[in-house]
């Protein structure tokens, strides 16, 4: 209870500010509309109601967004193309596939980096540089390029997700696989353990907390990747496409609804990873 109350208070404050802001931001246009419709002296309460009910508001009011989310999820068949559940699922599948790719790639690179001096020295700067490439710029070309070699649909999106999500995993896993202290490694040396044994009995378990922390960042960023990919790959739908079409048609309510669904999806995904972490922790006796 005393964890929920503060959150509720802050949320309430946000909603109040939001309502006020949407009056303020939508007012100029509403005034213009009213002038044009020759409506003089609209009472303030009615004016406020008008600003909260515009068709294409600068800032939609919370209940408009909530209504759109409701209409586009619960009120529709999940298989309908208008359903955000349908689009969410499309994005989710690309996210999950990309996340799986990204995590695997990240772990593989980290293993290479900690076991091989040359990789250690040569890879890291380029891995960092790779993240400074504006993926949004490369995504359209990547989609076309992959199309040229026959990859369409889910895979290009997943690859872009992977491109973003492998990074936190490499960084975290390099740290994690290096986290065993010298003495813990020395212990294995006194047993003349093989590198393989050292990996599975020491480095890997020691890296678990780092892996999960990275995966929480990674899965959220995977979702960003899938959405970015959808901006360049409009065939087939997805939350990114909804965002895009909302934007090209000036439908702000639709943009906000898609954004909130994306945010909710991110939260759920992060929570799922957290849950998995909790389960693994319990199995390995990590202190609560």
């Amino acid at each position: 209870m005393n964890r929920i109350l503060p959150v509720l208070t802050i949320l309430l404050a946000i909603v109040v500010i939001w309502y006020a802001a949407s009056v303020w931001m939508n007012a100029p246009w509403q005034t213009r509309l009213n002038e044009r419709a020759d409506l003089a002296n609209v009472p303030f309460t009615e004016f406020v109601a008008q600003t909260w009910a515009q068709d294409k508001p600068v800032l939609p009011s919370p209940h408009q967004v909530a209504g759109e989310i409701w209409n586009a999820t619960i009120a529709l068949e999940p298989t309908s193309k208008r359903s955000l559940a349908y689009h969410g699922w499309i994005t989710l599948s690309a996210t999950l596939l990309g996340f799986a790719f990204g995590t695997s790639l990240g772990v593989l690179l980290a293993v290479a980096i900690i076991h091989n001096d040359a990789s250690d020295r040569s890879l890291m700067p380029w891995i960092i540089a790779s993240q400074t490439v504006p993926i949004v710029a490369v995504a359209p070309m990547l989609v076309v390029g992959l199309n040229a070699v026959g990859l369409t649909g889910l895979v290009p999106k997943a690859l872009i997700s992977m491109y973003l999500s492998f990074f936190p995993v490499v960084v975290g896993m390099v740290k994690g696989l290096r986290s065993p202290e010298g003495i813990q490694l020395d212990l294995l040396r006194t047993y003349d353990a093989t590198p393989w044994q050292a990996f599975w009995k020491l480095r890997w378990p020691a890296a678990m907390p780092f892996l999960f922390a990275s995966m929480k960042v990674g899965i959220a960023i995977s979702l960003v990747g899938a959405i970015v990919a959808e901006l360049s790959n409009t065939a087939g739908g997805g939350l990114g496409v909804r965002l895009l079409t909302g934007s090209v048609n000036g439908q702000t309510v639709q943009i906000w609804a898609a954004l909130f669904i994306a945010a909710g999806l991110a939260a759920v995904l992060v929570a799922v990873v957290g849950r998995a972490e909790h389960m693994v922790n319990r199995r390995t006796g990590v202190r609560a």
Partner: protein
Amino acid sequence: MIRTLSMLQLYLALIAGGCGLLGLAASLPTLGAAPLMQIFFAVSTLSLLRLVLPWPFWLDGVLAALGAWALIASLPAEGLMPLHHWLALIASWAFAWLFVERLAAAIRAGKLPETGTGLVIPLIFGLALIVIWEVVTRGASVSPVLLPAPSAIATRFAASTGILWADFVQTFIKSVIPGYIIGCIAGLLVAIAVDRSPFLKAGIMPIGNFMSALPIIGIAPIMVMWFGFDWQSKAAVVVAMTFFPMLVNTVAGLNAASAIERDLMSTYAASYRQTLMKLRLPAAGPFIFNALKINSTLALIGAIVAEFFGTPVVGMGFRISTGVGRLAIDLVWAEIAVAAIAGSAFYGVIALIERGVTFWHPSVRGGRA
């Protein structure tokens, strides 16, 4: 001499020499057509002698360079390159890798100094990637509207420095820097404010965590709508993207001081301010720098995305999106190169400052960051 090579190095040496031998055989029918290539194949084959004779590691470097040179010099003007040139590509790549392996081993063994040589390895790696890119795009005739060769990009880069500089100023200097500074400072201040009140902290942190997982780029069109076309809207996107990582990291960092370090402060009956300034902020340093580093890559990406949704007719994002529309893909890649260079340099500068400021942290004290 075999004994001085690790298993991996041995395999690489065999691949390099083997491809040289095969290439030599395959190129015999066209003897003299590409003399440089022939020389490369011959010397590569000779390198198999390392199994019985000493073969210094710099020779592998020379061979890798020779191979790259031979390949680029004999790229066909059009059409596909002959099959055995692919063998040369594999061989010279194997030489480069072998060179890097042996260089790293020599540094580790203390035979070469760390400073100076440390930079060489990543550079060679990058060069190798670029050579492969050049040879594959040109050798396999990849359409320049799909993926231009690095040489074409470089030419375009050199020819358009004016445009690139103007775009850089618009995007990086006008949008990224102010947005980054505002976002990071705001995140830091809010974190400190929030930290004082457990109630605020309990309320804001879950929301902050939630927001930092959000696909913030989604707000780019909204920011353009709110803040107009010029740099202000880009800076706003950058602020929104950098704020939450800073908030979350700083709050975590402010809790990083250990219980005993705080107890010490309380035995002195230190005030809140004193504890903050003398203990908790310094202890939070590594976390704050972590956020600064994360944000340095996020900021540029945010500004570029925002430019996709409306700009004056200048800016890296603008140039990239219109460039794709006009199929000026080489210009697009030149802009991407600018972005990568600027982003890496930005990151590097922050990392350097970090080394100076958090010199005391174990991760800085020991080994590479």
